[in-house]
Protein backbone atom coordinates (compact mmCIF):
# COMPACT_ATOMS: atom_id res chain seq x y z
CA UNK A 1 0.00 0.00 0.00
CA UNK A 2 1.32 3.42 -0.91
CA UNK A 3 0.78 5.76 2.01
CA UNK A 4 1.45 9.50 2.11
CA UNK A 5 1.48 11.37 5.42
CA UNK A 6 0.97 15.15 5.45
CA UNK A 7 3.10 16.90 8.05
CA UNK A 8 3.66 20.46 9.17
CA UNK A 9 6.36 22.34 11.00
CA UNK A 10 4.93 24.48 13.80
CA UNK A 11 6.46 26.75 16.42
CA UNK A 12 7.21 24.82 19.60
CA UNK A 13 4.64 25.75 22.19
CA UNK A 14 6.07 23.84 25.14
CA UNK A 15 8.60 26.58 25.70
CA UNK A 16 6.18 29.40 24.95
CA UNK A 17 5.16 31.87 27.60
CA UNK A 18 2.90 34.91 27.50
CA UNK A 19 4.44 38.36 27.35
CA UNK A 20 2.80 40.14 30.29
CA UNK A 21 2.65 43.45 28.42
CA UNK A 22 1.52 42.42 24.97
CA UNK A 23 -0.24 39.20 26.03
CA UNK A 24 1.19 37.46 23.00
CA UNK A 25 3.21 34.27 22.84
CA UNK A 26 6.89 34.88 23.32
CA UNK A 27 8.45 33.04 20.39
CA UNK A 28 11.88 31.73 21.20
CA UNK A 29 12.66 31.50 17.51
CA UNK A 30 15.05 28.59 17.56
CA UNK A 31 12.32 26.10 18.38
CA UNK A 32 10.26 24.64 15.61
CA UNK A 33 8.85 21.17 15.85
CA UNK A 34 6.73 18.66 14.00
CA UNK A 35 3.05 19.30 14.63
CA UNK A 36 2.32 16.82 17.45
CA UNK A 37 -0.87 15.53 15.80
CA UNK A 38 1.14 14.62 12.71
CA UNK A 39 3.23 12.19 14.74
CA UNK A 40 0.06 10.20 15.44
CA UNK A 41 -0.69 10.32 11.73
CA UNK A 42 2.79 9.06 10.92
CA UNK A 43 2.55 6.26 13.47
CA UNK A 44 -0.81 5.21 12.04
CA UNK A 45 0.77 5.05 8.59
CA UNK A 46 3.71 3.03 9.90
CA UNK A 47 1.37 0.62 11.69
CA UNK A 48 -0.63 0.09 8.50
CA UNK A 49 2.56 -0.42 6.52
CA UNK A 50 3.74 -3.06 8.95
CA UNK A 51 0.31 -4.70 8.71
CA UNK A 52 -0.17 -4.86 4.96
CA UNK A 53 3.18 -3.82 3.51
CA UNK A 54 3.96 -0.89 1.27
CA UNK A 55 5.67 2.44 1.69
CA UNK A 56 5.27 5.59 3.76
CA UNK A 57 6.16 8.96 2.26
CA UNK A 58 5.99 12.14 4.31
CA UNK A 59 5.09 15.39 2.54
CA UNK A 60 5.17 18.94 3.81
CA UNK A 61 4.81 22.46 2.50
CA UNK A 62 6.88 25.24 3.98
CA UNK A 63 10.14 27.12 4.00
CA UNK A 64 13.22 25.06 3.09
CA UNK A 65 14.01 24.57 6.79
CA UNK A 66 10.71 22.72 7.17
CA UNK A 67 12.34 19.70 5.58
CA UNK A 68 13.45 19.00 9.13
CA UNK A 69 10.00 17.51 9.80
CA UNK A 70 10.59 15.12 6.91
CA UNK A 71 13.96 14.10 8.32
CA UNK A 72 12.16 13.62 11.61
CA UNK A 73 9.57 11.44 9.87
CA UNK A 74 12.28 9.35 8.20
CA UNK A 75 14.10 8.98 11.50
CA UNK A 76 10.87 7.58 12.93
CA UNK A 77 10.43 5.08 10.13
CA UNK A 78 9.07 6.82 7.01
CA UNK A 79 10.68 5.62 3.78
CA UNK A 80 11.12 9.02 2.20
CA UNK A 81 9.82 12.56 2.00
CA UNK A 82 9.08 15.46 -0.31
CA UNK A 83 8.79 19.17 0.40
CA UNK A 84 6.75 21.75 -1.48
CA UNK A 85 8.66 24.97 -1.15
CA UNK A 86 8.33 28.14 -3.18
CA UNK A 87 7.80 31.79 -2.41
CA UNK A 88 4.59 31.46 -4.41
CA UNK A 89 3.21 29.15 -1.69
CA UNK A 90 3.79 31.64 1.14
CA UNK A 91 0.83 33.00 3.06
CA UNK A 92 -1.52 30.23 1.98
CA UNK A 93 -4.81 29.66 3.79
CA UNK A 94 -6.38 26.22 3.94
CA UNK A 95 -7.78 26.37 0.40
CA UNK A 96 -4.44 27.30 -1.18
CA UNK A 97 -2.49 24.89 1.05
CA UNK A 98 -4.73 21.94 0.28
CA UNK A 99 -4.59 22.80 -3.44
CA UNK A 100 -0.78 22.75 -3.41
CA UNK A 101 -0.69 19.54 -1.38
CA UNK A 102 -3.06 17.88 -3.85
CA UNK A 103 -0.65 18.74 -6.68
CA UNK A 104 2.30 17.48 -4.64
CA UNK A 105 0.55 14.18 -4.00
CA UNK A 106 -0.30 13.81 -7.67
CA UNK A 107 3.33 14.60 -8.49
CA UNK A 108 4.33 11.69 -6.26
CA UNK A 109 2.03 9.50 -8.31
CA UNK A 110 -0.90 9.62 -5.90
CA UNK A 111 -1.46 7.30 -2.96
CA UNK A 112 -3.73 4.53 -1.81
CA UNK A 113 -4.05 6.16 1.57
CA UNK A 114 -3.34 9.68 2.77
CA UNK A 115 -3.03 10.24 6.50
CA UNK A 116 -3.23 13.68 8.12
CA UNK A 117 -3.12 14.72 11.75
CA UNK A 118 -6.45 15.91 13.09
CA UNK A 119 -5.21 19.50 12.99
CA UNK A 120 -2.09 21.64 13.36
CA UNK A 121 -1.61 23.28 16.72
CA UNK A 122 -0.65 26.65 15.25
CA UNK A 123 -3.64 27.05 12.97
CA UNK A 124 -6.24 24.91 14.74
CA UNK A 125 -8.44 24.65 11.67
CA UNK A 126 -8.64 20.86 11.09
CA UNK A 127 -9.54 21.71 7.49
CA UNK A 128 -6.55 20.61 5.41
CA UNK A 129 -7.45 16.90 5.41
CA UNK A 130 -11.06 17.26 4.25
CA UNK A 131 -10.19 20.00 1.73
CA UNK A 132 -7.34 17.90 0.35
CA UNK A 133 -9.66 14.90 -0.05
CA UNK A 134 -12.12 17.08 -1.95
CA UNK A 135 -9.39 18.41 -4.28
CA UNK A 136 -8.27 14.84 -4.96
CA UNK A 137 -11.84 13.66 -5.42
CA UNK A 138 -11.53 10.88 -2.85
CA UNK A 139 -13.45 9.85 0.27
CA UNK A 140 -12.28 10.80 3.70
CA UNK A 141 -13.04 10.06 7.32
CA UNK A 142 -12.15 12.68 9.93
CA UNK A 143 -11.13 12.06 13.52
CA UNK A 144 -10.19 8.39 13.21
CA UNK A 145 -9.32 7.04 16.62
CA UNK A 146 -8.55 3.42 15.75
CA UNK A 147 -7.80 1.23 12.75
CA UNK A 148 -9.87 -1.89 13.27
CA UNK A 149 -9.03 -3.74 10.08
CA UNK A 150 -6.51 -3.14 7.32
CA UNK A 151 -6.33 -4.65 3.86
CA UNK A 152 -4.71 -3.57 0.59
CA UNK A 153 -8.01 -2.25 -0.73
CA UNK A 154 -9.85 -1.02 2.35
CA UNK A 155 -9.75 -0.03 5.99
CA UNK A 156 -12.26 -0.41 8.76
CA UNK A 157 -11.89 2.49 11.17
CA UNK A 158 -13.47 3.73 14.35
CA UNK A 159 -14.08 7.34 15.21
CA UNK A 160 -15.58 9.02 18.24
CA UNK A 161 -17.59 12.18 17.87
CA UNK A 162 -18.89 13.79 21.03
CA UNK A 163 -21.52 11.26 22.01
CA UNK A 164 -21.42 8.85 19.12
CA UNK A 165 -18.96 6.21 18.01
CA UNK A 166 -18.90 5.03 14.40
CA UNK A 167 -17.29 2.05 12.73
CA UNK A 168 -16.75 2.76 9.07
CA UNK A 169 -15.74 0.75 6.03
CA UNK A 170 -13.49 2.86 3.87
CA UNK A 171 -12.52 1.63 0.40
CA UNK A 172 -9.20 2.96 -0.88
CA UNK A 173 -8.00 5.32 -2.20
CA UNK A 174 -9.05 7.54 0.67
CA UNK A 175 -7.85 10.00 3.26
CA UNK A 176 -8.13 9.83 7.02
CA UNK A 177 -7.40 12.40 9.68
CA UNK A 178 -6.18 10.90 12.91
CA UNK A 179 -7.25 11.91 16.39
CA UNK A 180 -4.82 12.12 19.22
CA UNK A 181 -4.28 9.23 21.53
CA UNK A 182 -4.84 6.31 19.18
CA UNK A 183 -1.24 5.21 19.32
CA UNK A 184 2.03 6.08 20.92
CA UNK A 185 4.34 7.67 18.35
CA UNK A 186 7.68 5.90 18.24
CA UNK A 187 10.76 7.88 19.06
CA UNK A 188 13.40 8.30 16.38
CA UNK A 189 16.00 5.56 16.40
CA UNK A 190 19.68 6.35 16.00
CA UNK A 191 20.01 4.52 12.67
CA UNK A 192 16.77 6.29 11.70
CA UNK A 193 18.22 9.66 12.58
CA UNK A 194 21.27 8.93 10.48
CA UNK A 195 19.02 7.91 7.61
CA UNK A 196 16.98 11.09 8.07
CA UNK A 197 20.09 13.25 7.93
CA UNK A 198 21.39 11.51 4.85
CA UNK A 199 18.05 11.41 3.05
CA UNK A 200 17.83 13.14 -0.31
CA UNK A 201 14.58 15.01 -0.01
CA UNK A 202 13.24 16.41 -3.27
CA UNK A 203 11.88 19.96 -3.33
CA UNK A 204 8.96 20.75 -5.59
CA UNK A 205 8.35 24.34 -6.65
CA UNK A 206 5.13 25.76 -8.01
CA UNK A 207 6.58 25.35 -11.47
CA UNK A 208 7.50 21.72 -10.84
CA UNK A 209 3.89 21.10 -9.87
CA UNK A 210 2.57 23.13 -12.81
CA UNK A 211 0.51 24.96 -10.24
CA UNK A 212 -1.91 27.71 -11.18
CA UNK A 213 -0.15 30.60 -9.43
CA UNK A 214 -3.47 32.38 -8.96
CA UNK A 215 -4.51 29.50 -6.67
CA UNK A 216 -1.31 29.48 -4.61
CA UNK A 217 -0.12 31.27 -1.49
CA UNK A 218 -1.55 34.58 -0.38
CA UNK A 219 -2.86 35.30 -3.88
CA UNK A 220 -4.82 32.09 -3.95
CA UNK A 221 -6.22 32.48 -0.44
CA UNK A 222 -9.81 33.72 -0.29
CA UNK A 223 -9.60 34.45 3.44
CA UNK A 224 -7.78 37.58 4.55
CA UNK A 225 -6.88 38.55 8.09
CA UNK A 226 -8.11 42.12 8.48
CA UNK A 227 -6.92 42.62 12.01
CA UNK A 228 -5.53 40.86 15.04
CA UNK A 229 -6.08 42.01 18.58
CA UNK A 230 -5.55 40.89 22.13
CA UNK A 231 -8.67 39.50 23.74
CA UNK A 232 -10.06 41.68 26.51
CA UNK A 233 -8.09 40.96 29.67
CA UNK A 234 -9.73 40.14 32.96
CA UNK A 235 -9.15 42.49 35.83
CA UNK A 236 -6.92 41.48 38.71
CA UNK A 237 -8.18 38.34 40.41
CA UNK A 238 -9.77 38.88 43.78
CA UNK A 239 -7.83 37.02 46.44
CA UNK A 240 -9.81 34.87 48.83
CA UNK A 241 -8.02 35.08 52.18
CA UNK A 242 -8.44 33.52 55.57
CA UNK A 243 -7.96 30.02 56.84
CA UNK A 244 -9.21 27.14 54.78
CA UNK A 245 -12.61 26.97 56.45
CA UNK A 246 -13.12 30.69 55.85
CA UNK A 247 -11.97 30.36 52.25
CA UNK A 248 -14.40 27.49 51.76
CA UNK A 249 -17.20 29.61 53.16
CA UNK A 250 -16.44 32.45 50.77
CA UNK A 251 -16.22 30.01 47.87
CA UNK A 252 -19.69 28.69 48.67
CA UNK A 253 -21.02 32.26 48.47
CA UNK A 254 -19.26 32.96 45.17
CA UNK A 255 -20.41 29.68 43.62
CA UNK A 256 -23.95 30.36 44.75
CA UNK A 257 -23.93 33.85 43.22
CA UNK A 258 -22.46 32.64 39.93
CA UNK A 259 -24.92 29.78 39.59
CA UNK A 260 -27.82 31.98 40.59
CA UNK A 261 -26.77 34.67 38.11
CA UNK A 262 -26.47 32.14 35.32
CA UNK A 263 -30.04 30.90 35.63
Amino acid at each position, binding site marked *: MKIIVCMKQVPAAAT*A*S*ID*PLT*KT*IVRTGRNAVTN*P*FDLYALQTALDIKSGVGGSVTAITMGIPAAQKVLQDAISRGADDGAILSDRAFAGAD*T*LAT*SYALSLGINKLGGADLIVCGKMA*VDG*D*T*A*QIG*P*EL*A*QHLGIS*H*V*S*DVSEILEMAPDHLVVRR*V*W*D*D*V*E*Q*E*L*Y*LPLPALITVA*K*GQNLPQLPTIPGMLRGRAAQIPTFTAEDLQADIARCGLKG*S*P*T*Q*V*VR*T*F*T*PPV*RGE*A*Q*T*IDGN*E*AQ*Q*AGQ*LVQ*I*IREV*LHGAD
Partner: protein
Amino acid sequence: MERIKKGALWVFCEVQENQLLPVGLQLLGRAKTLAEESNRPLYAVVLGKISKDSVKLLHASGAHEVICSVGSAFDEKLEQPYADSLIRLSEQFEPDILLVGATPFGRAFAPRVAAALGTGLTADCTELSIDAESGLLLQTRPAFGGNMMATIRTATSRPQMATVRPGVLPLPEPMEVSDREPITIEDDGQIGLVKLLKETAISRGADISQSKIIVAAGRGIGQKKNLKLVQALADKLGGQVGASRPLVDMGFCPYSSQIGQTGYSVAPDLLICCGISGAVQHLAGIGGAKTVIAINTDPKAPIFAVADYKIVGDCVSVLEHLLKALDEN
Protein backbone atom coordinates in the same frame (compact mmCIF):
# COMPACT_ATOMS: atom_id res chain seq x y z
CA MET B 1 -38.20 26.88 -5.60
CA GLU B 2 -38.78 30.53 -6.44
CA ARG B 3 -39.07 31.04 -2.69
CA ILE B 4 -35.29 30.58 -2.51
CA LYS B 5 -33.55 33.83 -3.34
CA LYS B 6 -29.91 33.99 -4.35
CA GLY B 7 -27.42 35.89 -2.22
CA ALA B 8 -29.05 34.79 1.03
CA LEU B 9 -27.52 34.03 4.40
CA TRP B 10 -27.66 30.30 5.09
CA VAL B 11 -27.31 28.55 8.40
CA PHE B 12 -26.75 24.80 8.24
CA CYS B 13 -28.64 23.25 11.14
CA GLU B 14 -27.35 19.87 12.27
CA VAL B 15 -29.75 17.23 13.50
CA GLN B 16 -28.80 14.57 16.02
CA GLU B 17 -31.28 11.83 16.92
CA ASN B 18 -34.13 13.82 15.36
CA GLN B 19 -33.28 16.85 17.48
CA LEU B 20 -31.86 20.14 16.26
CA LEU B 21 -28.50 20.81 17.87
CA PRO B 22 -28.46 24.05 19.87
CA VAL B 23 -25.56 25.49 17.85
CA GLY B 24 -27.79 25.85 14.77
CA LEU B 25 -30.29 27.89 16.77
CA GLN B 26 -27.50 29.94 18.33
CA LEU B 27 -26.26 30.70 14.83
CA LEU B 28 -29.74 31.65 13.62
CA GLY B 29 -30.05 34.04 16.56
CA ARG B 30 -26.90 35.89 15.55
CA ALA B 31 -27.57 35.53 11.81
CA LYS B 32 -30.94 37.24 12.24
CA THR B 33 -29.13 40.44 13.21
CA LEU B 34 -26.56 39.98 10.46
CA ALA B 35 -29.33 39.44 7.91
CA GLU B 36 -31.16 42.56 9.01
CA GLU B 37 -28.00 44.66 8.96
CA SER B 38 -27.10 43.52 5.48
CA ASN B 39 -30.59 43.18 4.06
CA ARG B 40 -30.23 39.52 3.16
CA PRO B 41 -32.83 36.80 3.50
CA LEU B 42 -32.00 34.22 6.18
CA TYR B 43 -32.49 30.52 5.49
CA ALA B 44 -32.08 27.55 7.80
CA VAL B 45 -30.80 24.56 5.82
CA VAL B 46 -31.48 21.06 7.08
CA LEU B 47 -30.43 17.82 5.42
CA GLY B 48 -32.84 15.00 6.15
CA LYS B 49 -36.38 15.02 7.48
CA ILE B 50 -37.29 16.96 10.61
CA SER B 51 -40.48 17.29 12.60
CA LYS B 52 -43.05 20.08 12.24
CA ASP B 53 -42.03 21.36 15.65
CA SER B 54 -38.41 21.60 14.57
CA VAL B 55 -39.39 23.55 11.45
CA LYS B 56 -41.42 25.89 13.59
CA LEU B 57 -38.52 26.35 16.02
CA LEU B 58 -36.25 27.32 13.12
CA HIS B 59 -38.77 29.92 11.95
CA ALA B 60 -39.19 31.12 15.53
CA SER B 61 -35.42 31.44 15.84
CA GLY B 62 -35.25 33.84 12.90
CA ALA B 63 -35.21 31.81 9.67
CA HIS B 64 -37.23 33.42 6.88
CA GLU B 65 -37.40 30.07 5.15
CA VAL B 66 -36.43 26.54 6.10
CA ILE B 67 -34.81 24.59 3.27
CA CYS B 68 -35.20 20.90 3.87
CA SER B 69 -33.23 18.67 1.55
CA VAL B 70 -34.49 15.11 1.86
CA GLY B 71 -33.03 11.90 0.54
CA SER B 72 -31.81 8.54 1.70
CA ALA B 73 -28.18 9.74 1.64
CA PHE B 74 -28.70 11.71 4.84
CA ASP B 75 -29.80 8.82 7.02
CA GLU B 76 -26.24 8.41 8.20
CA LYS B 77 -24.07 11.29 9.20
CA LEU B 78 -21.09 10.96 6.89
CA GLU B 79 -18.92 13.65 5.39
CA GLN B 80 -19.40 13.04 1.70
CA PRO B 81 -23.17 12.92 1.19
CA TYR B 82 -23.68 16.01 3.35
CA ALA B 83 -20.88 17.91 1.64
CA ASP B 84 -22.07 16.87 -1.82
CA SER B 85 -25.60 18.00 -1.11
CA LEU B 86 -24.54 21.39 0.24
CA ILE B 87 -22.24 21.82 -2.76
CA ARG B 88 -25.16 21.17 -5.13
CA LEU B 89 -27.51 23.46 -3.21
CA SER B 90 -24.89 26.22 -3.08
CA GLU B 91 -24.17 25.95 -6.78
CA GLN B 92 -27.86 26.16 -7.55
CA PHE B 93 -28.94 28.91 -5.15
CA GLU B 94 -25.69 30.82 -4.62
CA PRO B 95 -25.82 31.82 -0.96
CA ASP B 96 -23.72 34.83 -0.03
CA ILE B 97 -22.92 33.48 3.43
CA LEU B 98 -22.93 29.89 4.69
CA LEU B 99 -22.54 29.26 8.42
CA VAL B 100 -22.03 25.84 9.99
CA GLY B 101 -21.78 24.85 13.66
CA ALA B 102 -18.22 23.86 14.57
CA THR B 103 -19.26 20.45 15.84
CA PRO B 104 -16.96 17.56 14.97
CA PHE B 105 -19.31 16.71 12.09
CA GLY B 106 -19.52 20.32 10.88
CA ARG B 107 -15.77 20.65 10.97
CA ALA B 108 -15.41 17.35 9.10
CA PHE B 109 -17.68 18.05 6.13
CA ALA B 110 -17.73 21.87 5.71
CA PRO B 111 -14.12 22.02 4.43
CA ARG B 112 -15.10 19.76 1.52
CA VAL B 113 -17.83 22.24 0.60
CA ALA B 114 -15.39 25.16 0.72
CA ALA B 115 -12.79 23.34 -1.36
CA ALA B 116 -15.35 22.33 -3.99
CA LEU B 117 -16.71 25.87 -4.25
CA GLY B 118 -13.20 27.35 -4.20
CA THR B 119 -14.06 29.61 -1.32
CA GLY B 120 -12.64 30.51 2.07
CA LEU B 121 -13.66 28.85 5.31
CA THR B 122 -12.83 30.31 8.70
CA ALA B 123 -12.68 27.63 11.38
CA ASP B 124 -14.18 27.71 14.82
CA CYS B 125 -15.23 31.36 14.99
CA THR B 126 -16.37 32.89 18.24
CA GLU B 127 -17.85 36.12 16.88
CA LEU B 128 -19.50 37.25 13.66
CA SER B 129 -20.44 40.72 12.45
CA ILE B 130 -21.07 42.64 9.26
CA ASP B 131 -18.61 45.27 8.11
CA ALA B 132 -20.72 48.41 7.75
CA GLU B 133 -18.67 49.70 4.83
CA SER B 134 -18.22 46.65 2.62
CA GLY B 135 -21.15 44.54 3.82
CA LEU B 136 -18.71 41.63 4.18
CA LEU B 137 -18.93 39.08 6.96
CA LEU B 138 -16.30 39.66 9.62
CA GLN B 139 -15.30 36.36 11.18
CA THR B 140 -13.41 36.48 14.46
CA ARG B 141 -11.57 33.51 15.91
CA PRO B 142 -8.84 32.79 18.41
CA ALA B 143 -5.41 32.62 16.79
CA PHE B 144 -1.96 31.57 17.93
CA GLY B 145 -3.32 29.34 20.64
CA GLY B 146 -5.99 31.72 21.84
CA ASN B 147 -3.67 34.50 22.95
CA MET B 148 -4.71 36.65 20.04
CA MET B 149 -7.94 37.08 18.19
CA ALA B 150 -7.97 37.43 14.42
CA THR B 151 -10.73 38.97 12.35
CA ILE B 152 -10.95 37.42 8.93
CA ARG B 153 -12.98 38.16 5.83
CA THR B 154 -13.58 36.48 2.51
CA ALA B 155 -13.56 39.33 0.05
CA THR B 156 -14.25 37.91 -3.37
CA SER B 157 -15.24 34.25 -3.39
CA ARG B 158 -18.68 33.05 -2.38
CA PRO B 159 -20.22 31.93 -0.20
CA GLN B 160 -18.40 33.46 2.74
CA MET B 161 -18.08 30.40 4.96
CA ALA B 162 -17.41 30.01 8.66
CA THR B 163 -17.81 27.32 11.27
CA VAL B 164 -18.82 28.71 14.65
CA ARG B 165 -18.03 27.21 18.01
CA PRO B 166 -21.00 25.79 19.90
CA GLY B 167 -21.95 27.55 23.10
CA VAL B 168 -20.39 30.95 22.47
CA LEU B 169 -23.49 32.65 21.05
CA PRO B 170 -26.66 32.81 23.13
CA LEU B 171 -29.77 30.85 22.21
CA PRO B 172 -32.32 33.25 20.71
CA GLU B 173 -35.62 33.83 22.47
CA PRO B 174 -38.13 32.11 20.14
CA MET B 175 -40.49 34.54 18.41
CA GLU B 176 -44.20 34.02 17.96
CA VAL B 177 -44.64 32.52 14.52
CA SER B 178 -47.37 30.65 12.72
CA ASP B 179 -46.80 27.18 11.24
CA ARG B 180 -45.20 27.42 7.83
CA GLU B 181 -44.19 24.69 5.45
CA PRO B 182 -40.50 24.19 4.81
CA ILE B 183 -39.18 24.30 1.26
CA THR B 184 -38.60 20.63 0.59
CA ILE B 185 -36.07 19.60 -2.03
CA GLU B 186 -35.73 15.99 -3.10
CA ASP B 187 -32.08 15.03 -3.24
CA ASP B 188 -31.20 11.81 -5.01
CA GLY B 189 -27.53 12.09 -4.07
CA GLN B 190 -25.63 8.92 -3.29
CA ILE B 191 -24.28 8.00 0.08
CA GLY B 192 -20.73 7.72 -1.24
CA LEU B 193 -18.14 5.01 -0.81
CA VAL B 194 -17.74 5.12 2.96
CA LYS B 195 -20.12 2.70 4.64
CA LEU B 196 -21.30 2.99 8.20
CA LEU B 197 -20.99 -0.46 9.75
CA LYS B 198 -22.00 0.33 13.29
CA GLU B 199 -22.98 3.34 15.31
CA THR B 200 -23.04 3.38 19.09
CA ALA B 201 -24.23 6.16 21.32
CA ILE B 202 -21.68 6.80 24.01
CA SER B 203 -23.14 7.26 27.43
CA ARG B 204 -20.40 9.43 28.71
CA GLY B 205 -22.83 12.31 29.00
CA ALA B 206 -22.57 15.75 27.51
CA ASP B 207 -19.28 16.79 26.02
CA ILE B 208 -17.02 18.85 28.24
CA SER B 209 -17.06 21.63 25.64
CA GLN B 210 -20.78 22.15 26.30
CA SER B 211 -20.61 21.94 30.06
CA LYS B 212 -21.81 24.95 32.04
CA ILE B 213 -19.94 24.06 35.22
CA ILE B 214 -16.48 22.52 35.17
CA VAL B 215 -14.19 21.52 38.01
CA ALA B 216 -10.79 21.03 36.43
CA ALA B 217 -7.75 19.38 37.90
CA GLY B 218 -4.06 19.77 37.14
CA ARG B 219 -0.83 18.35 38.42
CA GLY B 220 -1.30 20.14 41.73
CA ILE B 221 -3.94 17.57 42.60
CA GLY B 222 -1.04 15.26 43.50
CA GLN B 223 -2.20 11.68 43.73
CA LYS B 224 -4.82 10.05 41.56
CA LYS B 225 -7.04 9.31 44.54
CA ASN B 226 -7.52 13.05 45.10
CA LEU B 227 -9.49 13.19 41.87
CA LYS B 228 -12.37 11.76 43.90
CA LEU B 229 -12.66 15.17 45.56
CA VAL B 230 -12.79 16.88 42.18
CA GLN B 231 -15.46 14.47 40.99
CA ALA B 232 -17.42 14.95 44.22
CA LEU B 233 -17.43 18.74 43.79
CA ALA B 234 -18.44 18.44 40.13
CA ASP B 235 -21.28 16.08 41.09
CA LYS B 236 -22.45 18.40 43.83
CA LEU B 237 -22.55 21.38 41.49
CA GLY B 238 -24.08 19.41 38.62
CA GLY B 239 -20.96 19.91 36.54
CA GLN B 240 -18.25 17.89 34.87
CA VAL B 241 -14.63 17.13 35.58
CA GLY B 242 -11.99 18.61 33.31
CA ALA B 243 -8.28 17.96 33.28
CA SER B 244 -5.05 19.52 32.13
CA ARG B 245 -2.93 17.65 29.65
CA PRO B 246 -0.39 16.24 32.13
CA LEU B 247 -3.16 14.40 33.99
CA VAL B 248 -4.41 12.91 30.74
CA ASP B 249 -0.89 11.98 29.68
CA MET B 250 -0.37 10.26 33.02
CA GLY B 251 -3.56 8.30 32.50
CA PHE B 252 -5.34 9.92 35.47
CA CYS B 253 -8.16 11.28 33.30
CA PRO B 254 -9.63 10.36 29.89
CA TYR B 255 -8.82 12.47 26.83
CA SER B 256 -12.50 13.43 26.62
CA SER B 257 -11.91 15.62 29.67
CA GLN B 258 -8.74 17.33 28.43
CA ILE B 259 -9.02 21.11 28.28
CA GLY B 260 -6.64 23.11 26.13
CA GLN B 261 -5.14 23.46 22.73
CA THR B 262 -4.79 19.76 22.03
CA GLY B 263 -7.94 18.92 23.98
CA TYR B 264 -11.31 20.65 24.14
CA SER B 265 -12.15 24.33 24.32
CA VAL B 266 -14.64 25.09 27.05
CA ALA B 267 -16.94 28.02 27.79
CA PRO B 268 -18.63 27.28 31.13
CA ASP B 269 -20.39 29.76 33.39
CA LEU B 270 -18.17 28.54 36.21
CA LEU B 271 -14.71 27.03 36.00
CA ILE B 272 -12.92 25.94 39.15
CA CYS B 273 -9.25 25.20 38.46
CA CYS B 274 -7.63 22.96 41.06
CA GLY B 275 -3.85 22.76 40.96
CA ILE B 276 -3.62 23.94 37.37
CA SER B 277 -0.64 26.18 36.72
CA GLY B 278 -2.02 27.59 33.49
CA ALA B 279 0.34 26.71 30.66
CA VAL B 280 -0.29 28.67 27.47
CA GLN B 281 -1.81 25.62 25.81
CA HIS B 282 -4.24 25.15 28.67
CA LEU B 283 -5.23 28.82 28.75
CA ALA B 284 -5.99 28.57 25.03
CA GLY B 285 -8.91 26.30 25.89
CA ILE B 286 -10.56 28.35 28.62
CA GLY B 287 -10.90 31.79 27.02
CA GLY B 288 -14.69 31.41 26.92
CA ALA B 289 -15.13 30.69 30.64
CA LYS B 290 -17.24 33.32 32.39
CA THR B 291 -16.21 33.04 36.03
CA VAL B 292 -12.89 31.42 36.88
CA ILE B 293 -11.85 30.38 40.37
CA ALA B 294 -8.24 29.23 40.61
CA ILE B 295 -6.56 27.38 43.46
CA ASN B 296 -2.81 26.87 43.30
CA THR B 297 0.11 26.79 45.69
CA ASP B 298 2.29 28.97 43.46
CA PRO B 299 1.29 32.63 43.81
CA LYS B 300 2.95 33.33 40.46
CA ALA B 301 1.03 30.63 38.55
CA PRO B 302 -0.18 32.04 35.18
CA ILE B 303 -3.66 30.65 35.86
CA PHE B 304 -4.20 33.52 38.32
CA ALA B 305 -3.84 36.05 35.48
CA VAL B 306 -7.04 34.76 33.90
CA ALA B 307 -8.89 34.07 37.17
CA ASP B 308 -11.63 36.16 38.78
CA TYR B 309 -10.98 34.68 42.21
CA LYS B 310 -7.76 33.22 43.51
CA ILE B 311 -6.76 31.11 46.45
CA VAL B 312 -3.07 30.57 47.03
CA GLY B 313 -2.99 27.22 48.72
CA ASP B 314 -3.18 23.46 48.41
CA CYS B 315 -6.17 22.58 46.27
CA VAL B 316 -6.68 19.19 47.94
CA SER B 317 -7.15 20.78 51.31
CA VAL B 318 -9.33 23.59 49.92
CA LEU B 319 -11.47 21.01 48.14
CA GLU B 320 -11.95 19.02 51.35
CA HIS B 321 -13.05 22.13 53.22
CA LEU B 322 -15.26 23.29 50.35
CA LEU B 323 -17.05 19.94 50.13
CA LYS B 324 -17.63 20.06 53.86
CA ALA B 325 -18.94 23.62 53.67
CA LEU B 326 -21.31 22.70 50.84
CA ASP B 327 -22.61 19.78 52.90
CA GLU B 328 -23.32 22.07 55.79
CA ASN B 329 -25.22 24.56 53.61
